[in-house]
């Protein structure tokens, strides 16, 4: 029996049906749970749509086809399929990390579906190339794929056991699905290859909607040079620096991330 697009990607929709849609796309390594501290706030003013990329989290892994998902184009098509299924227009697309480039490809493919792009920690190319500083070498990425092989077990480990007590933690945990951040190891490894070996620099100038780049001040995955490159090559893009470490501002600095997105969508 055919599984619908919405089931296939575990699409969750909240907020007002008539409000402008805001679609959140998670990056490599986790799933839609990554937006937990940011997305709910926007449900007051937007129709918030969350989903898992195929192969991640609670998506229908049986629908994963290695050949089809060997590039970001298919991931972008999935985003468009979700937009069509929900009949979304004027979408504010918020993509983290590799999903920033997935948003670029989707916007180029169907310019009318999107109103704005928000890129959280984008990089158009992770591997250094001449004067371009992506931050990594080919060998680094090969090593990452090997590392993921040795983490086969860890990536499938279900959320379980005791959690250190904290004020809201028990409550927060209850929201979390048992499939949280689980990825089938072979798919995670291929997604890593597609992500970190990608090069979308040539696509950036083709973006035709207002774009916000959020750059973490200390991001080991997407260095400032990567964010600046995206800003300089997406026509009219603006860049905001979020003072935080790591690659996930939406987790480590949610209020700053929310404020930056809000200011951008209100302009």
């Amino acid at each position: 029996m055919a599984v619908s697009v919405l089931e296939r990607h575990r699409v969750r929709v909240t907020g007002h049906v008539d409000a402008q849609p805001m679609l959140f796309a998670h990056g490599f390594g986790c799933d839609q749970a990554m937006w937990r501290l940011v997305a709910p706030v926007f449900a007051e003013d937007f129709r918030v749509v969350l989903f898992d990329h195929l192969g991640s989290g609670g998506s229908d892994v049986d629908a994963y086809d290695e050949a089809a998902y060997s590039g970001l184009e298919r991931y972008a098509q999935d985003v468009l399929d979700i937009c069509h299924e929900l009949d979304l227009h004027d979408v504010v697309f918020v993509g983290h990390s590799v999903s920033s480039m997935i948003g670029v490809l989707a916007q180029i493919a169907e310019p009318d579906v999107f109103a704005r792009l928000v890129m959280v920690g984008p990089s158009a190319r992770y591997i250094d190339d001449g004067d371009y500083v992506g931050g990594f070498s080919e060998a680094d990425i090969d090593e990452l794929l090997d590392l993921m092989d040795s983490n086969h077990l860890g990536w499938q480990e279900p959320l379980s056991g005791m959690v250190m007590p904290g004020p809201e933690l028990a409550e927060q945990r209850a929201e979390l699905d048992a499939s949280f951040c689980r990825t089938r190891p072979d798919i995670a490894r291929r997604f890593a290859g597609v992500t970190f070996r990608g090069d979308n620099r040539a696509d950036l100038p083709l973006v035709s909607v207002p774009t916000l780049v959020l750059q973490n001040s200390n991001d080991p995955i997407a260095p400032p040079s990567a964010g600046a490159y995206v800003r300089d090559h997406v026509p009219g893009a603006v860049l905001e620096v979020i003072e935080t470490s790591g690659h996930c501002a939406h987790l480590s600095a949610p209020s700053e991330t929310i404020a930056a997105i809000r200011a951008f969508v209100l302009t």
Partner: protein
Amino acid sequence: MTGDPTGLFEHAPAAYVVLDRDGGRIREANGAFLALVGRSREDVLGRGLSSMWSVAGRIFHDTHLMPTLELSGRIDEVALEIVTAGGARIPVLLNANLDRSGEHAGEAAVVRVVLFPARHRRLYETELLRATREAEEARSRAVELARSLQQTLIPPVPPVIPRLQMSAVYRPAGAGDEVGGDFYDVFNVAPREWVVVLGDVSGKGIPAATVTAYIRHTVRDLAMQHADPADLLHELDAGLHQQDTDKFCTVVVLRLSESDRGWRVTGSSGGHPLPLLGHRDGTVVELGSPGSLIGILDDARFTTFTHDLADDEFVTVYTDGVTEARRGGGALLGDETLQRLVSRVAADPASVSDAIVAAALAYQDDVAVDDIAVLTLHPTRG
């Protein structure tokens, strides 16, 4: 460190560090951690733990480890590599949790991390991974071999017989990664004279495929020497007896000769479902009488039937993958159902083979447990 009078932290038999939640800088480190990384306490305090991973480890740290910790509060058994002050790489397993117990008292949450060196385990895992990859490669080679072999069991291109239309469908069992035992062949033995052979060798895989190859070329050879199909089967039976194999087979042989009056079909079955003779008006009967299995009995019996094929008749031969299709592991599709099905589509003989295979697949929920081969012949004008 304060509050560690019994050395629970400092002297723990595992490398143990406490990090700032934001930024992951090392706040406290025990003796085992300092020994592991080969650095002094002054050197490590304030440094980000991720700076001690290999580059790949840093990517993993920021894309998976930290998000998981933030969202679920803990992460277990992560395999990473520490790079020591001397540049050596030490495989470790990491467990970590997010400790927010102090937040009640206004203290910031911290991340507690325990590391275990895992050199031997990693060697073992590397071997396991290598073995798994080799097994996967071997399997895909086997699939490739099976597919290649499978293609030798049927003609690469169905021959074109003037004034006799043939439709053949061949469907291997399951996913097609095993060589089946069904085969067919169609070849020219004289001007306006053709032989059709369709059969099923017992078993599957390479042993069955070698017997199939033997039977196909032996039938081609014998067809030049014996005009009578029953004689041919006798010789084939004797030949298979002499082979060093415990395999046997069922075969149906048709010899089609064209004269000015039309097509005459003679045939014989060796333990095989009898050919069906269909008429466009929906009448379906079996042709000939059953014969012995090939390669088993000492006194095998085969008989030849003869039929002059009318312009509105057709002949269908098939393997038992059709009639022995099982619904949910239960009832067989059976001879009667098959004949009713053929009767329903008899008005269009060219559609018979496809209809039979489709029905057999549908009957077993599209998972063919046995190979299926079906071949239908009908005279055409012109």
